[in-house]
């Protein structure tokens, strides 16, 4: 029997009707046309599919649509907008923390989630929190710098 899943998506109340078992990553990309969240491995290893669910970084390729019933989902499209980017997004740009950009939405959302939980992480804490997000182009060094910079800006530093 078809179910209706209600949830908040990028600060808007939405509904999805289906079996409930549909893969969340593909529902976001196809049914909601939000293609910023990426398919990298389909098995939760790479983090390219990272979204926020109730402010926590989750791997959407490992979830079903039923998993977000009643929850607040944030994709990269919901984070800031062109005129008012999130500090983490600005930091990624300032520090050249991307090359091909495919891992980037997942990296940014994972970093946002980290900074919500730990506003002033040490470099080791950043590395530990980010270590399961993969980047093939080798932007890791600059991603760490970007997160450190965003953390400083957000906590009133420079």
């Amino acid at each position: 029997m078809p179910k209706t899943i209600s949830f908040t998506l990028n600060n808007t109340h939405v509904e999805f009707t289906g079996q409930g078992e549909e893969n969340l990553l593909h529902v976001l990309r196809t049914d909601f046309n939000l293609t910023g969240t990426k398919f990298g491995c389909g098995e939760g290893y790479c983090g390219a599919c990272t979204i926020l669910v109730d402010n926590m970084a989750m791997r959407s390729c490992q979830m079903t649509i039923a998993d977000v019933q009643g929850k607040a989902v944030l994709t990269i499209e919901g984070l800031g907008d062109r005129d008012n980017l999130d500090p983490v997004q600005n930091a990624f740009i300032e520090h050249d923390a991307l090359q091909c950009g495919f891992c980037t939405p997942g990296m940014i959302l994972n970093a946002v989630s980290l900074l919500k939980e730990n506003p002033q992480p040490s470099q080791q804490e950043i590395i530990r929190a980010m270590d399961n997000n993969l980047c093939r182009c080798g932007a890791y060094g600059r991603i760490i710098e970007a997160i450190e910079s965003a953390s400083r800006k957000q906590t009133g530093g420079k």
Partner: protein
Amino acid sequence: MENMLYARVVRPPSHGAKLVSKNTEKARSVAAVRIIEEQDLVAVLHEKPYMADKAFAMIETRFDKGSDQPDNDSIFDLLDKSGTHERTITEQGDLARGKQISQKIVEATYYNHYVAHAPLETHSITAKVNPDSATLWISTQTPFRIQPAIAEALKLPEDKVRIITPFVGGGFGGKKGGEFFIQAARLAQITGRPVQLVLTRADEFHYDHFRPAALVKARTGLDGQGKIMLWDFKHYFPGSRSSEPIYDIPHYRVLSKGTARGQRSPHPFDTGAWRGPGSNTNVFAMESQTDLMAQAAGIDPLTFRLNNLKDPRMRRVLQAAAEKFDHPFKPLPSGDGVGIACTNYLNTYVATIAKVLVDKQTGQIKVERMVCVQDMGEIINPQGARLQIEGGLIMGLGYCLGEEIKFRGGTVLTQNFGDYDITRFSWTPHIEAILIENPELDPQGCGEPAITTTGGVLANAVADAVGTRLYTLPMTPERIRAALSK
């Protein structure tokens, strides 16, 4: 795209395996699914990708079983005995004479396993085929090269086939053509609707044209003053790029052995260009061998290199790297864990110095710091160049420390990142990329040179750290522990 279908296509579990039987009955029970069975093309299509996946999982297929050989343990022996196409890349003087005047002869063989491109974005295509034209959005580095094959498959004139390349999520030499692009185009033509095909990660590993497994046999000689007199190298299957010796040597010969066109390759699957093709393997062997000679001579690796180099561009990058690294080089093995590697990659000169820590209990290697100096002639985009150097070194750590495709005959056993260790945040050293100002020289290449030094620099650093050298990449903790226990 409006009216689009998502496709999943049946492919063999093993290269060369033939389809013996198939049953699409169960798959057809999925509402609104389309199944295409046209000769060798068996595909499932649906407006929703999760429904296409669901139906695809219901298809039953049987393929014939191919050979279990070669595998990771037997491949090098096979490559050693294979190939008939041997050519001389460069030579000078006389090898017998070189041996005669050498006081010490150093011999070693170096091994590289198969390595995948593993871009984070898998190959993907969206195809829209009209009666007399087609537009395809393809994740490829070579749209012009694949256009003829697609045009032929669709029976359309080439000038009616338009290929658009969106931003590619990584290629590294691995995103060119592929039968899956042809399949998607055909499916769009057959169904009359736009079709999107995205490879799964397991498909991506299966279809990849790997950097070839290869071995390099080295026999070199030096005189009593630490000058290289003899350089006799045989490069089996990596390719010949960067194999010309960079040092001043009176007697040398470089041979490259592979498979001639039209001959059967010993590789159980296709191999191809991987960021710095040939050079990663060759420079690993050449610079490791150089350190072996320095060690035999009791001379530190920087002085040994400079003593054998007149080339001003090579001396310049080496000295600039040494100055920045600011470390007193000592003869190997010093326990400091510092290594050097340098190369001339298609007229871009690179020198890299690295410091590693090796945990002798676990065999874990931690790369602490890298300095890389690159002379690429006139620099158009300095920040872009720095990013490419950093990116190349970081990517290179993967094939040095963890990446190895596991296989059994034509079956690629590696299926996802859980079985394939690419570089992570926690592996990443502090990197300083330094660009040499050389504006008199036209702009040279920039994206590939740095990565080709990673094998040599890390092998040398590890040997300096623990007093034992590894001759095989990747240098996994297992291999380190095994080497240390000997």
